[in-house]
């Protein structure tokens, strides 16, 4: 329970910050104020300012939008395609379909994700959308494999046999008996992929393939701060902390949600 509350609180802080940034930020992040550049944290600028004099606190608020949106959509793509593929492969274990799905997954796994992201951006140009697609594609095999492995062991359970005796088909059994019992696993993996998505977006933005200026992004803030780290460490520290705490919060929230969803633990509490 403590994990859940702490994790959800952390996540909520960042989500609220991102939501609030649509309406209000302390400063406009597109306005440059060179006179006030590289200010250390003060009462006016809570997290200081960067090399263009932009308010770092405001940039983190706006940047959270990009990070969270990219990560959510990438997880939705990964789960939405990966889980059905994994369930199908498990239901038709050993068939040609199973082989095709799983070898296709291996193929995607075999490419370094950053390489594909570079490929995609080379063709379509760098943008947040292309970053989402690139990260999302790499979530598919993660979920497909996880789902197939766990589903295979569930298919040997007696209650699946009982459902077959009750005349239920593979689709029905997958939906009623397999998927609900995978929920724990998928939620935990979902939060891990979510946090990896945030990191991946930061990495892509860092090399200039994610969200493009002037849209702020945590990854690009880090990239910009790199040369200034000795001069003004706070410019790098605050986006770094933002990434750290979001990922931490999400992982703890995922663990907590899994515990709450388990009917066995629900009663003992």
């Amino acid at each position, binding site marked *: 329970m403590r994990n859940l509350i702490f994790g959800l609180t952390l996540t909520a802080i960042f989500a609220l910050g991102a939501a609030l940034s649509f309406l209000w930020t302390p400063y406009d992040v597109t306005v440059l104020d060179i006179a006030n550049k590289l200010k250390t944290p003060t009462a006016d600028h809570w997290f200081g300012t960067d090399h263009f004099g932009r308010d770092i606190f405001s940039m983190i608020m706006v940047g959270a939008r990009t990070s969270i949106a990219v990560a959510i959509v990438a997880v939705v793509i990964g789960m939405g395609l990966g889980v059905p593929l994994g369930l199908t492969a498990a239901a038709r274990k050993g068939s040609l379909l199973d082989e095709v799905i799983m070898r296709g997954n291996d193929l995607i796994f075999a490419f370094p994700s950053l390489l594909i992201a570079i490929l995609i951006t080379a063709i379509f140009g760098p943008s947040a959308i292309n970053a989402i697609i690139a990260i999302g594609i790499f979530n598919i095999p993660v979920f497909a494999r996880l789902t197939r492995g766990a589903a295979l062991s569930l298919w040997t*359970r007696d*209650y699946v046999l009982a459902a077959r*005796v009750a*005349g239920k088909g593979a689709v*029905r059994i997958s939906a*009623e008996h397999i998927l609900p019992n995978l929920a724990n696993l998928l939620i935990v993996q979902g939060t891990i992929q979510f946090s990896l998505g945030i990191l991946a977006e930061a990495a892509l933005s860092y090399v200039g393939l994610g969200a493009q200026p002037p849209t702020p992004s945590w990854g690009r803030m880090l990239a910009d701060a790199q040369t200034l780290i000795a001069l003004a460490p706070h410019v790098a520290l605050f986006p770094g902390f933002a990434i750290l705490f979001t990922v931490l919060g999400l992982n703890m929230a995922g663990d907590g949600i899994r515990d709450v969803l388990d*009917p*066995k633990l629900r009663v003992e509490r």
Partner: protein
Amino acid sequence: MTLLSIEQLNLSIGDLPILRDVSLSVGAGEVVGVIGESGSGKSLTAFSVMQLLPRGASCQGRISLLGRDVLTMTEPALCAMRGRDVGMVFQEPMTALNPVQTIGAQVAETILIHEPKTSKSEALERAKQALTRCELPADKFPLSRYPHELSGGQRQRVVIAMAIALQPKLLIADEPTTALDVTTQAEILALLARLVREDGMGLLLISHDLAVVSDMADRIVIMKDGAVVETGAADLHRTMTHPYTKALFAASGHQPVRSAEPQEIPLLQVQNATRDYTLPRRSLFGPVDTFRAVDGVSFEIKRGESLGLVGESGCGKSTLTRAILGLDPLQGGKILLDGEPVGPAVRRKMQVVFQDPYGSFNPRHKVGRLVAEPFHLLNRKATAEEVDAALISVGLTPPDKHKFIHEFSGGQRQRIAIARALIIKPDLIVLDEAVSALDVSIRAQILDLLADLSDQFGLTYLFISHDLSVVRAITDRCLVMKAGKIVEEGATETLFTAPSHPYTRTLIAAAPQLPAA
């Protein structure tokens, strides 16, 4: 000489008291049987001797082992004691052995831990001797074998060899034969008896099975709810005074009263059924081998009859069950239910109850939904009345349908499984080891329930089991299966009193007998 004496042992985990005033003793060369149903604290009593207790457990009282008080020993002293002075044999030989180590290395490990000066080759030599004593001679079972290359009984011999490698004074065996077939069980029990005699060891034999223990033990301790209710000599069945002991003996030999008479109409006809499995290829382009699990099996069940199918693990009875249920295709022959081949059309006339009350339900659904699942066959939803009626017919109450499955005990779950099988009023219920995982008193209740239901609804049972006493109690006719074939068929009483096939005779002779009171 007393090896082990437990006096007034109280054990609690957290605030929950588990054991109350448990006292027992084991002398050299003595076999003490501890009997109890699940949750009686028999295993925790054994584990407290080794001090291998779950986190948060605390013991009061005295456990004296070879004159030393175990409860005051330090962890290093306990480590030196475990394995050297006390050996332990576990229930499940599959999980008690490390699958990636050879059997020789695992037996030698015990020796090397306790006598670190021993050279590796010497330890292996002694491991070889220990395995030979456990009837796994090195010329037939080299030390380089891995556990997966052995059968269940052979694995249990390896576990025993590990336990006796250092010739401990006391051996604790926690349900050592529960996971094994009857003939293997008889061999393992004979082996344990021989080792105890040869080494003058004390043996603490823990079991839920009265027949196993009363065959072997010099003294018997009966436990219930964490306390010893009665202690007696091997002839406890004659001297017992405690009502629980009497109830336990009565339940073990329980025969439900059945009044239904089979009709002369065949319900299920299995004709020359053959089922092959494809084995994995040995080489990339080698021929595909097949294994014939069910080999030309034919039999009939009459309407209202209760038919037993007995066989040891690997005889093909589970494969046959799956074919009867229409889950797997046959390679030859046919199976007719009510004159029609099994398949979607006749599936509604047949339901199944599985062995494991813990694995046969989706933990995420409530009981009402679980029980109503077979209604899928009728293409409609179950009404609330139908669910309630099914629950009531197995001795549960309608409000139970709002609960999750983990809120029920093993016996209650098996009732729910029966309710699920009953709800669409099938003609045939296949009971696949349906009472094998239950405690004797619960088993007696479930057998009564089954007998009741068959009288009430005119049900036909196919009772598949490895447990001869259960089959004898509930069936009219019985089939004995071995290596995919039916070797003997006959009326249950005749088959048990005058078996004609040598295999049937072996089976019946191997089954431990409960002494007549």
